[in-house]
């Protein structure tokens, strides 16, 4: 059962509610179909939350690792980058869905630590306890409407262009615990749809080796003209 509620022009909706589903059948107890809220509005972005997302996805704004491995994104630059990006797509989902999926995995240390500090129980007991409480509490929260202010930022992507010929997609990220559910693809499709609606078809994305299969699945491919991607790596001489 999936439905879409659109706000605004149907083909260029700025805010949309969608359902994403995990393809694999593991983790039977957790609901594997969760609602996400996609927004293309800049005002829905909370910069602090965005910076937090960058850290949690381990995404650095400096592509080349030698250019400073600090994982904290500079706030002022982030603000400029967002305000000057022509397309921004943010994906939100309800907080309890994020927490629940992180409780299924042991590798999300942040969430683990937070829960440990708030209660004196061991992780195993915590999980059991949260399951008991989950049915009522989550049923209530499931009914509550999802909006950018009530949800948690879990996915993001942005692109800048010259409004005429070309565009570049950058900083595409989804929380590790919610990956492989189609959220990333949702973001990419939304970006390309917005760009093509403005008649820009030359859309580029810089990606690492391990991201290439993902982009390939989204409809990206190596340049047909056979061009080589090059980046500036020399340091500025004083």
């Amino acid at each position, binding site marked *: 059962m999936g439905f879409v*509620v*659109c*706000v*605004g*022009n*149907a083909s*260029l909706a*700025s*805010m949309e*509610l969608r359902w994403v589903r995990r393809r694999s059948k593991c983790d039977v107890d957790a609901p594997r179909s969760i609602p996400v809220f996609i927004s293309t*509005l*800049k*005002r829905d972005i909370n910069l602090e939350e965005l910076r937090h997302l960058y850290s949690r996805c381990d995404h650095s*704004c*400096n*592509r080349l690792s030698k*250019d400073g491995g600090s994982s904290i994104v500079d706030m*002022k*630059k*982030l603000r*400029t*980058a967002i305000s*000057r*990006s022509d397309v921004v797509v943010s994906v939100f989902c309800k907080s309890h869905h994020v927490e629940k999926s992180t409780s299924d995995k042991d590798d999300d240390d942040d969430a683990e630590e937070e829960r440990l500090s708030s209660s004196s129980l061991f992780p195993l007991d915590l999980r059991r306890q949260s399951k008991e409480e989950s049915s009522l509490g989550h049923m209530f929260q499931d009914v509550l*409407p999802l*909006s950018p202010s009530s949800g948690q930022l879990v996915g993001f992507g942005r692109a*800048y262009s*010259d*409004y*005429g*010929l*070309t565009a*570049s997609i*950058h900083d595409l990220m989804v929380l590790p615990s919610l990956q492989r559910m189609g959220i990333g693809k949702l973001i990419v499709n939304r970006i*390309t749809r917005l760009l*093509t609606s403005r008649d820009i*078809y*030359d*859309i*580029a*994305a*810089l*990606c*690492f080796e391990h991201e*290439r299969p993902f982009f*390939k699945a989204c*409809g*990206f491919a*190596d340049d047909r*003209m*056979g*061009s*080589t*991607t*090059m*980046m*500036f*790596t*020399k340091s*500025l001489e004083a």
Partner: protein
Amino acid sequence: MILIPTSSSCSSYSCCSLPQASFNSNSYSSNQSLFLSKSAYPIPHGSRKLKTLRLRANFWESIRSGFVKNNNTTQLVEPPSTIEEDEDTEPVLPVEFTLVERTLQDGLVEEIIFSSGGEIDVYDLQTLCDKVGWPRRPLTKLAAALKNSYMVATLHSVLKPSSSSEGDTEQQQQQNKKLIGMARATSDHAFNATIWDVLVDPEYQGQGLGKALVEKLVRALLQKDIGNISLFADSQVVDFYQNLGFEADPEGIKGMFWYPK
């Protein structure tokens, strides 16, 4: 605006304020200030614009000093002052300076002028693209791309008779001015920039002009603390960019393009 999931069929609300307007308004306001030096538009923040005029000049001064061979005919706008970070104003002030000046056989003096932030005639640009053999692109798109690029650098060649008097009219100079090179970069003004469309007239190639064009553009971007400068090079110019400090596929980063099926 709260969206409540219901079991009824979906409906679309037309009362939502257009999000697209917020994208375009940014570029419209920036377009207005592009022409600030040429028209009499009322400028809302007058004193702030003047301050940034000065700081942009200083910024270009520091780049120019790295290259110029001939110091006599430079035209810079303002004396230097302290540089501050200001994210809302125009990135580049219209600035131009002479790169090379030489005397030709028939007594004419040719000046190659580097300029940035100035206006470009799209027809001239299209002629130049034809000369280098690039496929034709719609003029409106070309004009929009130039207007909304973060930085556009051009090279013009100006021919003057060696015995030119001071009374050379502006019009005469305009007629002898020829567009011979261009490079532009798009950016998000903070982290990433991509250089597109670098071209130099075939008659003027092999003289280091293309190198100067790209080098200045890159230096300007680095001075703005933009760390990721990328470009997509055709196979025959990969070496050219390598000599300028670019690396092919660094750390396995490749560019992919969207091809709708």
